[in-house]
């Protein structure tokens, strides 16, 4: 059973109120809900780093932003994360899918699928893998970490948790 409803409730419970991103099939359920429910105000961004920039402006305006992306988009975001968020101390939740997990996926996902945790470590950002049975706890834990450190943090989403809209 997907956990999309539980995940969206956890985002709201943790205060998130600004959403932007670029989709991934592993986020199909969440994005479908965003598209069906205008109250979320989800912004379909043209690039993942633009979504990070939108989130930065929103954060300074008093919002609590979450950005949605495939892990391929992490590479696109590198300069934004290190030369915007890191130095200005702007927190953002990066809901990042785990394509290429376990080396079983299309070729374009294999390298990032293998290195994404190391990538977060290298640029000194916290991350946490979303567990199917621990959705609320995981969202709360990574949120505490990014609020405490005033940095973006990755919530890594494996297949089978947010792919369907319920």
């Amino acid at each position: 059973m997907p956990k999309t409803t539980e995940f969206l409730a956890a985002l709201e419970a943790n205060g998130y109120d600004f959403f932007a991103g670029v989709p991934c099939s592993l986020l199909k359920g969440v994005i479908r809900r965003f598209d069906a429910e205008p109250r979320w105000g989800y912004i379909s961004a043209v690039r993942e780093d633009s979504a990070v920039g939108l989130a930065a402006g929103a954060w300074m305006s008093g919002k609590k932003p979450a950005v949605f992306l495939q892990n391929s988009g992490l590479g696109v975001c590198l300069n934004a994360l290190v030369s915007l968020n890191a130095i200005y101390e702007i927190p953002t939740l990066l809901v990042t899918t785990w394509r290429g997990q376990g080396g079983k996926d299309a070729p374009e996902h294999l390298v990032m699928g293998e290195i994404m945790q190391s990538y977060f470590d290298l640029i000194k950002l916290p991350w946490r893998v979303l567990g199917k049975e621990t959705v609320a706890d995981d969202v709360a834990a990574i949120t505490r970490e990014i609020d405490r450190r005033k940095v973006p943090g990755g919530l890594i989403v494996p297949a089978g948790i947010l792919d369907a809209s319920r």
Partner: protein
Amino acid sequence: MHRAEAVRLVMEAVRDELVVVCNGMIGREAFTAKDREANFYMIGSMGLALSIGLGTALARPEKRVLVLDGDGNVLMSTGVLASAAAAGAKNLLHVVLDNEAHGSTGDQATISSKVRLEAIAKASGYRWAERVPAERLQQELPAFLAREGPAMLLVKVEKGNLHGIARVIHEPPEIARRFARACQA
């Protein structure tokens, strides 16, 4: 007209707008012309000034947001022109100082001598996007600042950097805190 003079005219015309300034010399020139809490000096993340400005404009629809941008920054994220238009950000104004060069790295040519950025903005769905002659910038600015956005005013400026332009003295976290205070005031 030199870019620093154009920046000075823009900063003199600004009243209570939130101003997001792109990286490079434009930020230093804006700081030198008129430092204020409501200025966000983006010192890194080239290409993202419009994204930051759009995020601010959408989160604070009751405020007016001005993005002070350069041709190099706009060319790096032309897709975000479409984002601003698609979002229908009425409170977003975009001034582009186009010197057809990467002015902070040695005036290497961009491609804006061959590409009309205001035409891209218009085709993307900006409500208004025009190139204004530098000698008319000062008189056009008050009307531009009152426009419904997204609106782009592009002005061609001279290449080259003036002496005596200060570096932004505030540390980045302080720039963000000041801007956040102005956004949330």
